[in-house]
């Protein structure tokens, strides 16, 4: 069965990849968990004794405000992405096959291109004397340039711009799997457009919605460069807090605790996603 040559190859590959993942994924993550329950130390970054101070500090009104504001901006981003992306994915799944390939490619191109540069391009559009204001002024829609940059809205626009494809792609894949006969069956059974939408389309596309939410909500809390470029100092993300704690304030326990809250949110969303997929599997069977 197994030739002598296969086993050493198999062992070597498994040792290599496991070694890589254990050293560069598992160990670092355990370190972060460890750091979050240790005490801040100016020399060695962290030291004993064990304490939950960092987590308590997260509840400090000052930081709690930043967290809630960041969560709010991330939730708004996710909502806007969903509102734009849901009909978009639906429309995309109706386009003839050949053209779908091209359209998806056009969707992916900006998302593989430098996100910093694209954020900067948005700044060109949104600045006080930027293109959008100039266009509105010359159309006579406004008398004075609007303050668009350095607002909460600018951060949300920036995040939507960067993250929209992450919402559209999973939605597109569920719409692509949506079987026409189910919709026809629903109509034959006397359901109107609205009833079909609520009772057939929404439940069947729910895993795609949750996958999209997962892929947008979490990065929307971490992309610290978006507020740095578009949002000014009052519209910070959790990512900005983590970055400041690690690179400037040198408070590792606090930064680590903040990052663990992000990871737990991710775990929760992944769990919800699994659950919704399993439920649909049962109903379909």
């Amino acid at each position, binding site marked *: 069965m197994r030739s002598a040559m296969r086993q050493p190859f198999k062992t070597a590959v498994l040792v290599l990849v496991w070694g890589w993942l254990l050293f560069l994924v598992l160990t*670092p993550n355990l370190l972060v968990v460890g750091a979050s329950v240790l005490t801040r130390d100016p020399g060695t970054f962290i030291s004993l004794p064990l304490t939950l101070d960092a987590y308590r500090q997260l509840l400090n009104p000052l930081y709690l405000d930043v967290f809630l504001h960041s969560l709010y901006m991330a939730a708004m981003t996710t909502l806007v992405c969903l509102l734009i992306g849901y009909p978009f994915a639906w429309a995309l799944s109706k386009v003839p096959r050949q053209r779908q390939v091209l*359209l998806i490619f056009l969707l992916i191109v900006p998302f593989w291109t430098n996100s910093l540069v694209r954020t900067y391009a948005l700044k060109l559009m949104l600045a006080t004397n930027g293109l959008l204001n100039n266009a509105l002024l010359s159309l006579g829609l406004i008398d004075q340039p609007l303050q668009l940059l350095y607002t909460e809205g600018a951060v949300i626009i920036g995040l939507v711009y960067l993250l929209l494809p992450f919402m559209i792609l999973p939605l597109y894949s569920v719409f692509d799997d949506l079987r026409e006969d189910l919709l026809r069956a629903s109509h034959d059974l006397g359901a109107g457009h609205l009833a079909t939408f609520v009772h057939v389309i929404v439940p069947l596309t729910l895993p795609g919605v949750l996958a999209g939410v997962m892929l947008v909500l979490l990065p929307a809390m971490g992309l610290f460069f978006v507020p740095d470029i578009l949002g000014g100092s009052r519209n910070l993300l959790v990512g900005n807090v983590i970055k400041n704690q690690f690179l400037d304030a040198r408070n590792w326990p606090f930064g680590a605790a903040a990052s663990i809250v992000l990871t737990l949110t991710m775990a929760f969303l992944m769990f919800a996603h699994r659950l919704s997929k399993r439920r649909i599997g049962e109903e379909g069977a």
Partner: protein
Amino acid sequence: MTRWLPRTYLTLVYLLLYAPIAVLVVFSFNDSRTGYEWGGLSWRWYESLFNNRAMVEAMWNSLWLALSAATVSTLIGALTALALHRYRFRGKKALNGMLFVVMMSPEIVLAISLLALFLLVGLQLGYVSLLLAHVTFCLPFVVITVMARLSGFDERLPEAARDLGASDFTMTRTVLIPVIMPALLAGWLLGFTLSLDDVVVSTFVSGPSYEILPLRIYSMVRVGLKPEVNALGTLLLMFSMVMLIMSQWILTRSKQ
């Protein structure tokens, strides 16, 4: 239902997605310094870009990093995908799960965990730390690309090769490698672009000894508008697009 409504909607969203990019490209040829008014065609920002020695050095550093990160992650990723495809072993699910977690984790979580590791083991932040970090976040993408290729592959081919007396090594070289070649190229190109565009992870794990392009752009755009960034951004966009078109072309051509 009406046909023009979905079409108009799709077109509108695409226009919004591409408008800022188009503006950036057009303004990179703008002679005006203020950056908002049109002052005539000019190459001056491209010239000033290439006359900036620190900038050119950062470009080379970024290219070299992306080349090496893509190559290392393709090697490890391809071997991992082959192992996942061909062998049964304990912990296979755990391995898949870990790769999935790496792909799903917010970049910033990966970034601080790696920073913590590098500082605690005393690795000097620079090329090596960047390479380790970039290979780690590229790895799952390469594994997925190669796995997708292998899953659509006729299992009888390697069996036939072995029945005809080919050794395992010969079989891998003459049957498996040619089959996964397009996926290897696509995975390599993907890794290359991912590495070249990364900001979040690099912000944490790079040191002053090895300055790379995204970080240089970051420090430039934080303080106001810089026309040079339009030119640089245009070059980077064009570069990524060419890479992406190449990888898609390789993948679709190999399917036919």
